């Protein structure tokens, strides 16, 4: 087959477009969900994390400031969650962390509520005040139980 510059150009463009498509899939579509800065590592222990997963968003007043880095069981059989949030964030030491659900059937995320202290949380510290995930089954169970007592 005779060498043809046009054919070489077509193959070169094909390779470039193919690599661009792979890059688009990897970086844009498959990228991490939170693209902001991390650096401030905080820990929080919960009695119940429900459906919380690693990479779930961490939000202050509804604005995403970081993500859940890992979830594991600690020595006291509570769920120990590591949060990776923007290091520029100035959170008071008495801030609290709660597991919330976006909408009725949405994914779970961690909502941080700033406290009132002057002192700020630094990397590696523990968030003392936590609020576990709301379990619908437990809620219904309590409701049924309570209404049963009232009927007696």
């Amino acid at each position, binding site marked *: 087959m005779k060498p043809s510059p046009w054919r070489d150009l077509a*193959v070169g463009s094909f390779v470039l477009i193919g690599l661009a498509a792979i890059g688009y899939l990897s970086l844009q579509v498959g990228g991490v969900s939170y693209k902001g800065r991390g650096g401030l590592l905080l820990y929080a222990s919960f009695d119940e994390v429900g459906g919380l997963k690693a990479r779930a968003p961490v939000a202050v007043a509804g604005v995403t400031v970081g993500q859940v880095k890992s979830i594991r069981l600690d020595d006291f059989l509570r769920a120990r969650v590591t949060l990776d949030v923007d290091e520029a964030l100035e959170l008071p030491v008495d801030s609290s962390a709660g597991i919330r659900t976006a909408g009725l059937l949405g994914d779970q995320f961690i909502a941080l509520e700033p406290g009132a202290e002057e002192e700020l949380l630094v990397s590696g510290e523990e968030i003392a005040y936590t609020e576990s995930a709301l379990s619908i089954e437990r809620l219904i169970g309590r409701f049924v139980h309570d209404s049963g007592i009232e009927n007696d």
Partner: protein
Amino acid sequence: MIGRRVQGSVQGLGRRSLDAVVGLGRMAAFVGTVASHAVRPPWRLRRLVDEIFDVGVLSVAIVCLSGATVGAVLGLQGYVTLSRFGAANSLGAVVGLVLVRELGPVLTALLVTGRAGSAMAAEIASMVTTNQVDGLRMMSIDPVDFVVRPKALAMLFAMPMLNALFIVFALFGGYAVGVELLGLDGGTYVTSMEESIDLRNDVAGTLLKSVVFGALVGAIATYRGYTSEPTAAGVSAATTSTVVTASVAVLVFDYVITALWGV
């Protein structure tokens, strides 16, 4: 009388099983030879570029068109079903995951088998029929090195690119139907897609699948062509069996990869 007939059918089963095993072994030996040539110079880059043109560039149009159509129809079907549960906002996640995990690599492999794999087998088979392969051997040129290797490598190389193109066009097709036609919010569509697709599991998985499928289709097409009967019927048999075997192999390996890696 009946005993002899039973004996005959059992013998037939045994012969067919042996043939199947011998065929698989021959193919494995052939793939091994091609692979050992592939990592040794001379690299024959000019031959490789020509084959990538045939397999890759000429398949771009059909892959992009099919991708856009598949994405659009997924958007439509997904919308109808999801809106029944009031979950139409996760259309982006559904379309994206289905495409990246399954439909992208599998449909691309099936399309490329029909578009380029059959042509590859037919070309080699007619070279066998017209004694061109023997002619190469007479000039002490190894036909596996000169003819088979560039074709198989081109298939391996072009498949991931075509797969990525297919998925990107399908994502745009789904976006066009979901957002432009059905009026979903564009930001919600894109965000739910981007949040549900994971780089390590989904995107790496689709690339792994397409590389494996490329190797499979390339190996089957060249093997069927290279071992075809040197007759006109042999050419058509090689083409047919390439399409049938490669399609089945792609579907079976898709299940195996999904089961093993969970992608």
